């Protein structure tokens, strides 16, 4: 599990980031928290994308994770970071597992659209329900760690980084198993995979469920980082669109990619908003088109080219 370059890099990077975060100014710590929270969802979407599937509705699971934290907080007073994270991941994961039974029979545009429809159903419900905060959403109390309320954001930052590390290592391992290797194979030729004796439906179901668990966890972490939830920035189809954008921006080549892509997205968004608030969507859209046309492998493919990929095997 730890003997490949990617894993070694992840461990080292996590260490450096955790240590560096103790000395970094608040705004950098925030960028990393938001970026790494989102990266969790991107990790899952990356697995789906390698399989040839794009979901335009994963904000459903992201939102479920975020709102699970909010509801647990307001109704049950749960403030522990790990319980909150678990709740988000589990709620989204169970939903994803059940919905996966239907979803695994869809491909292409229908897969994308069904996910959109389901996510907008949730959006419609939350927006019109007073007790769920309606369009304003609601605030979340600060997270506690083993009963202790931290003074700064640093402990949460470390936890998010470690969660990201664990997820990345897990997905990295998954992609080396038979199940995981079937991503590109299914995308290339589903019929052959069935003929070779493997159930494509099962494979897709597993990948879908993994992606929903990750998206739910991401939503939970984001909610905790922001200290609030609201439907417009967490469940609307535009959020799903953003998730897809970052997935394409990052590229499918490696589990490290989502983290880099998410950070780039975070930085880009912050600066774009400061310099020209009316131009953020323009920049995002133009970047999207540029990637699709000129760099379909995303930022990661650029890193590979610049680093000069050496053949290890």
């Amino acid at each position: 599990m730890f003997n490949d370059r990617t894993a070694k890099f992840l461990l080292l990077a996590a260490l450096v980031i955790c240590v560096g975060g103790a000395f970094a100014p608040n705004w950098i710590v925030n960028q990393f928290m938001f970026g790494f929270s989102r990266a969790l969802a991107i990790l899952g979407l990356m697995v789906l994308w390698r399989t040839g599937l794009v979901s335009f509705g994963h904000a459903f699971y992201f939102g479920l994770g975020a709102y699970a934290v909010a509801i647990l907080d307001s109704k049950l007073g749960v403030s522990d970071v790990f319980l909150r994270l678990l709740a988000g991941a589990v709620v989204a994961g169970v939903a994803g597992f059940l919905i996966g039974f239907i979803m695994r029979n869809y491909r292409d545009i229908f897969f994308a659209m069904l996910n959109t429809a389901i996510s907008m159903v949730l959006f419609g419900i939350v927006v019109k329900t007073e007790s769920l905060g309606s369009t304003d959403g609601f605030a979340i109390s600060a997270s506690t760690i083993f009963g202790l309320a931290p003074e700064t954001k640093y402990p949460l930052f470390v936890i998010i980084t470690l969660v990201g590390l664990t997820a990345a290592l897990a997905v990295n391992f998954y992609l080396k198993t038979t199940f995981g290797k079937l991503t590109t194979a299914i995308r290339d030729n589903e019929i052959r995979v069935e003929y070779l004796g493997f159930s494509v439906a099962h494979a897709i179901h597993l990948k879908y469920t993994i992606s929903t668990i990750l998206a739910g966890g991401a939503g939970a972490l984001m909610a905790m980082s922001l200290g609030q939830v609201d439907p417009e920035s967490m469940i609307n189809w535009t959020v799903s669109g953003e998730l897809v954008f970052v997935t394409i921006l990052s590229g499918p080549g490696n589990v490290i990619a989502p983290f880099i892509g998410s950070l780039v997205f975070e930085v880009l968004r912050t600066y774009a908003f400061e310099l020209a608030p009316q131009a953020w969507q323009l920049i995002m859209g133009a970047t999207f088109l540029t990637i699709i046309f000129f760099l379909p492998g995303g930022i990661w493919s650029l890193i590979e080219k610049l680093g000069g990929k050496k053949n290890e095997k």
Partner: protein
Amino acid sequence: MEAALTILLDGLQFSSYLFIVSAGLTIIFGVMKILNVAHGSFYAWGAYTAAFFIGKFSDMGLPDALGFLIIVAAAIVVGVILGFIIEQGILKHMYERDEVLIVLATFGLFLVLEDIILIAFGTDPYFAYQPMALLDSVELGGITRDVYGMTLIGVAAVVAVGCWWLLNKTKWGTLLKAVIFDREMGISMGINVPLVYTLTFIGGAILGGLGGAYIAPTISVAPGLGTEVIVLSFAVVVVGGMGSIAGAAIGSLIIGILRAIAVHELPQVELFVVFAVMAIVLVFRPEGLFAPAKPRKI
């Protein structure tokens, strides 16, 4: 009785503008197999352009009736210019690529166009009520209705008849149906498919723009206009069947009336019910209710 009539007319009005927009979306999908997310931009641009010029002309003291001309002109100008630029500039280079990737590209275009609206028109809302005020209101079965809103139903009917006539009674329509059915066969039969694609996209864009332009006098034209309409027209197109105008009509009616009922009787489910129907159709009949037949390839 009055409540029912209100719901019916509200529903029909809502269905009408949804239909005009969705007809464009479904035709683009049927012919080019592209689910055009940027369609919301045609709608928004149509609305802003119409609202802007209606306001300007009104300021200049010109007769309010010109507003109707502006609406049609706005739709055509938006459709032709934006449609042409997008199809020739971006889409043309992507026809060989994965259909989901093309959808993502149209999403990128949507984002770009949304911000250009902000830059061009600013963030303050536009009110171009003049055409609506001009037509005043009328008493119908005990309730008061804007005449303008009812003309919307008329416009939708004209568009529906026009599309039907184009597809079934003209040479162009036959060519379109051939390309919808099988693009390869169309090419080998000598149909100028690239031209068909360009004209179809522009036509669809004009319809999208018309929906926005015509609705502009009844709302406050503000940022974010396109976002809501896109998912609604996706829902219509999914329910009706991608590529079918009749399907878009039926889908618009179903969704429009359902929404009107929800708004009046149970406001909490207004958004939910539309997408629930979309999800149900996708699960049980993913091709939609009226999807055109697909040829067997193998």
